[in-house]
């Protein structure tokens, strides 16, 4: 009995690859930056505290930021994987239901009103929550297993938020515009402590793993899952709220970072994971690593200036995804 018997080689390889990728990307992100710190020195600073500048760079700047990036990337990938099952659509991503739009609209309005920076994270979360509840209330009726209505409601809501965002941008004083645009494109430089986000990631993954056996049935459709022993209404509500809350958390920490949530679960599926008990943790590892690498590039490519990390995730993700898609064959 137990995992080992059916946890086939491909799954083991994927989990191993994810762990290795996660460790490698984190280490790499600690090594690169404007201050030149070698691998052995990085390790020494991680383990001990000698009060040097480099020690503080590692312990207080690079490590928290890398962990934040990993947590946000993992959360987004997890939310994307859940959303794709909820909507039964491989193009589902964390933002498709307008959660990020609500967050962005709230934050930009806050910036326009010159609210203190500290307010922005709770404001983003409140906006995301509001959007989530609106979409749920309006789109969650209809027949069992009908996700079209939910999808349409979310897409229309997202379009509405987008208009509000454009309006806010056009009304904003030019000096504030760069900050706003950065937020819109996703940015980790304001991430303070990584621990709350890592906590969200751990809790989210635990809850998602609890749902995983049901997700394995939901891919055949919620009605089919119901025949096999799942309560479809409950699963749909659980999936909706878990995916939305995860998205809200990620958006409030780092803005709307695109592509990680869409591309990562897809990539893991294309690599051969269809069992969600494997797919979810591997997606978290891959998504976290992707964002760590993208963020490292974002802060070093044209340093001392920083690029919005959302641009980098797209630049990294698009070619990888297209290559995988075109080389995937029917097995």
């Amino acid at each position, binding site marked *: 009995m137990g995992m080992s018997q059916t946890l086939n080689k491909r799954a083991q390889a994927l989990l191993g690859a994810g762990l290795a990728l996660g460790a490698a990307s984190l280490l790499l992100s600690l090594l690169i930056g404007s201050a030149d710190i070698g691998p052995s020195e990085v390790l020494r600073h991680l383990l001990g505290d000698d009060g040097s500048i480099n020690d503080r760079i590692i312990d207080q700047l690079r490590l928290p930021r890398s962990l934040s990036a990993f947590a946000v990337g993992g959360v987004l990938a997890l939310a994307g994987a859940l959303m794709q099952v909820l909507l*039964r659509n491989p193009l589902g991503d964390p933002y498709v239901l307008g959660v990020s739009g609500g967050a962005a609209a709230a934050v930009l309005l806050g910036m326009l009103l010159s609210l203190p920076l500290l307010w922005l994270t709770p404001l983003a979360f409140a906006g995301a929550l509001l959007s989530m509840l609106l979409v749920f209330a309006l789109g969650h009726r209809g027949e069992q297993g009908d996700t079209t209505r939910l999808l349409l409601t979310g897409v229309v809501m997202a379009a509405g938020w987008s208009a509000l965002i454009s309006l806010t941008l056009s009304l904003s004083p030019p000096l504030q515009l760069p900050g706003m645009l950065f937020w819109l494109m996703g940015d980790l430089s304001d991430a303070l402590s990584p621990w709350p986000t890592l906590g969200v990631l751990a809790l989210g993954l635990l809850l998602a793993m609890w749902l995983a056996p049901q997700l394995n*049935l939901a891919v*055949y459709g919620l009605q089919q899952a119901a025949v*096999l*022993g799942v309560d479809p209404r409950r699963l749909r509500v659980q999936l909706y709220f878990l995916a939305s809350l995860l998205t809200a958390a990620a958006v409030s920490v780092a803005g709307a970072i695109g592509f990680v949530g869409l591309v990562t679960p897809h990539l893991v599926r294309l690599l051969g994971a269809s069992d969600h008990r494997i797919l979810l943790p591997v997606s978290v590892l891959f998504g976290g690593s992707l964002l760590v690498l993208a963020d490292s590039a974002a802060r070093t490519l044209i340093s001392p200036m920083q690029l919005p990390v959302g641009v980098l995730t797209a630049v990294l993700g698009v070619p990888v995804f297209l290559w995988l898609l075109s080389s995937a064959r029917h*097995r």
Partner: protein
Amino acid sequence: MSTLMQTRQLDIRCGGKTLLGGLDLQIQPGQCWVVLGRNGAGKTSLLKTLAGLLPASGGEIMLDDRPIGRLPPKQRAQRLGLVFQHSDPGFHTSTLEMALSGGYARRGHWAWENAGEVLQAQQALAEVRLADLQQQSLESLSGGELRRAEIARLLVQAPALAMLDEPLNHLDIGQQIAMLQVLRRHFVASDRALLLVLHDINLARRIASHALLMYGDGHWRAGPVQQVADIHTLSDLLGYPLQQFDSDSGPMASIDFSHAGF
């Protein structure tokens, strides 16, 4: 022997139209029911309602003497199975994974499929003649192969009452007979029952012990197949003249082509 499923005064309405009114049905272990009726008569709605997926417009559905809505989903799945008329494999999964998914209701929440369950799923796939395709992805299966994979999943699920909505769609004649044999072997037993929606009246009259005729306007007839599914009743039900002739293997129904105009 106790009744597997019973309906009392079951009404099914769809879009303001009554499809079925006051249905009283008793399905006993060992029976094989066939549902006959024209397109749109409400056969699929009936199956989904009996499975608890659609709310009944009126009346009661009892499974093992309990209202169907009161049974916890996992418990219900162990007693009642349904193969849909249409299915969509959705994401990339293999034929074996699909067959294994039939065992969900019997597995512990955190339990992984053990070797015995894998073997059982492989045997089910072999029974529906898909042993060679177990690692194949569902998207690459033909319509008939997908249908048989769904039947394999039903065998793994092994419910007491198995309902199948036009299970012979997409199957060639040899496969139709083979699948009916498999279904009979598994579900027409001392503690199980089968309910099929079929359009082939000869197969229906041959395999079924009981028939439910749905007229699509609320009216229905139910009972032993010899009593309710005679050739005149079926002509009337299906809205097309049929004739009966004797063949070496018994009475056969045929379309009366003199009205066809070709």
